[in-house]
């Protein structure tokens, strides 16, 4: 009896979590004619992939996706390159600076964005970086850096210090021991951080909204948000199709880190 009610509860949760997703998929597969019908159905009468092809031609979504890709790649690489040495210092060298850095990582979670984004916008304007992809990269790096730092220093901590000491005994200098001992062990952590930074940037909306004003520089989330409007239901199909495609990179990311999530990467985040 207890088991049974547990299954009922689990099923209820699954329905709640799945129904908007199922509806998104259903909408993406419907013809414009069916969209216009007043009695929406779960299963499309005449499933079509036309919405997906329409999404490609509509409103330069492909261009927006390419721009998003450039921004996300640049942000991810830059974030990790900047964060890696600092993460190493935070994990290995005790000192006031490391403690301040850790404090900043925590504090940065609490600030309302508006306090930073207004002056940051003014700085970017002075540097002639508003309305450019470079400007968005700067903002994304700035806002991903704290969490990336925190992630990376966790991975550095996981590499046993003894290995470095052993390398030192064998006559390797600090740099040498980092390159040939720490780096290979750190690689999975670096990849995870790269992916995290990539997805943060790929998904990010608000900062891009503030920095980018012209449609021909807009990233994918901005383009998608512009998609809807008073034009009516005819365009909901392509919108749903484009939304699904925009989710693919993050889905791949989560598929990769699923195991880590379960084994408590995020649990560590709160137990700190």
């Amino acid at each position, binding site marked *: 009896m207890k088991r049974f009610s547990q299954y009922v509860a689990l099923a209820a949760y699954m329905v709640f*979590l799945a129904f908007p997703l199922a509806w998104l998929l259903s909408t993406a597969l419907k013809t414009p004619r069916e969209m216009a019908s007043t009695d*929406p159905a779960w299963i499309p009468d005449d499933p079509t992939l036309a919405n997906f092809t329409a999404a490609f031609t509509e409103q330069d979504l492909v261009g927006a996706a390419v721009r998003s890709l450039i921004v996300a790649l640049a942000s991810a690489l830059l974030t990790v390159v900047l964060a890696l040495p600092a993460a190493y210092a935070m994990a290995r060298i005790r000192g006031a600076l490391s403690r301040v850095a850790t404090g900043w990582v925590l504090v940065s979670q609490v600030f309302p964005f*508006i306090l930073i984004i207004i002056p940051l916008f003014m700085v970017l304007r002075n540097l002639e970086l508003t309305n450019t992809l470079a400007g968005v990269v700067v903002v994304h790096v700035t806002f991903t850096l704290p969490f990336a730092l925190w992630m990376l220093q966790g991975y550095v901590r996981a590499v046993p210090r003894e290995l470095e000491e052993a390398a030192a005994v064998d006559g390797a200098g600090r740099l040498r021991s980092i390159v040939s001992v720490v780096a290979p062990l750190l690689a999975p952590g670096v990849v995870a951080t790269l992916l995290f930074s990539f997805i943060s940037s790929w998904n990010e909306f608000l900062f891009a909204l503030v920095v980018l004003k012209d449609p021909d520089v807009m990233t994918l989330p901005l383009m998608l948000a512009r998609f809807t409007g008073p034009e009516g239901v005819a365009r909901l199909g392509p919108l749903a199709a484009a939304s699904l495609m925009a989710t693919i990179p993050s889905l791949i990311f989560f598929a990769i880190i699923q195991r880590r999530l379960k084994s408590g990467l995020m649990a560590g*985040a709160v137990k700190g």
Partner: protein
Amino acid sequence: MTATATRPPKQDTPARRAARGKQARDTLVLMLPALVPVLLFSVGPLLYGMALAFTDAKAGRNVTYSFIGFDNFTRLFEDSDFWQSMLVGLIWAVSVTVLTFLLGLGLALLLNEKLRFRGVGRVLAVVPWAMPPVVIGLMWRLVYHADAGILNGILGTEIDWLADFTFVLPAIILMGVWSGMPQTTVVLLAGLQNVPAELYEAGKIDGAGTWQRFRNITLPQLKPVIVAITSLDFVWNFNQFTLVYVLTQGGPGGRTRLPMLFAYEEAFRYGRFGSAAAFGLTIMVVVLALLGVYLWRQMREASS
């Protein structure tokens, strides 16, 4: 006592000082690449932003602005839109945080049991987390759509959910819970898995029922995780922007204008930078105060 007395006094030899100096230099060199952008693009702007709150700064290039003391704050506090936005923000943040926690705890407890299909459950529980916030907003627009939406189809109603003064707030809260549940569930699940199994065995031997074991073992063990995730959820929810901006843009009639939407409009639609900064500062104080009271109460409870 004796241990401290017999320990050799720390001598600040030149060699030791040199070693410490070298270490500090190493730290600085390693930190520098991250430090420069953080100082230039976060700490600096943050301080500047706080200062802007006391000026009449406006959007636009080469606009001169001057110090006006607390004028921005007094004007804000006289603005009924400000109070409405704060109220909406509090209702939203508290309801979403509490509901997310309760539903997330329920799901985490289920996924922690040895049930069939729990693998599917775990995957499905993470999917909303993997979706871009813009897509989540658009998806719920499709669900709530008056003509082509499924909600009216299921309920047999003809309500324009996102234009209705009564239903719009519950509607966005439902979306907030849906999108916040995965992370909360995963964190709570990880917490549950860290509760030592021996405690439950001991509880069983002592004859404690399921409910008693939950109350006296699970909840106290989970407490630190619960406090951490609800605090974070509250801050994140209070600062939420994208989901609601995409779904309703704050409408109808400001019924869903969360604090960050208000601030965004103030700054980038009306160009009142000073006023928006004052608003941001207010939000920060409110969030820190609420968080401080909450954490302080939790800690006092824990120590007593």
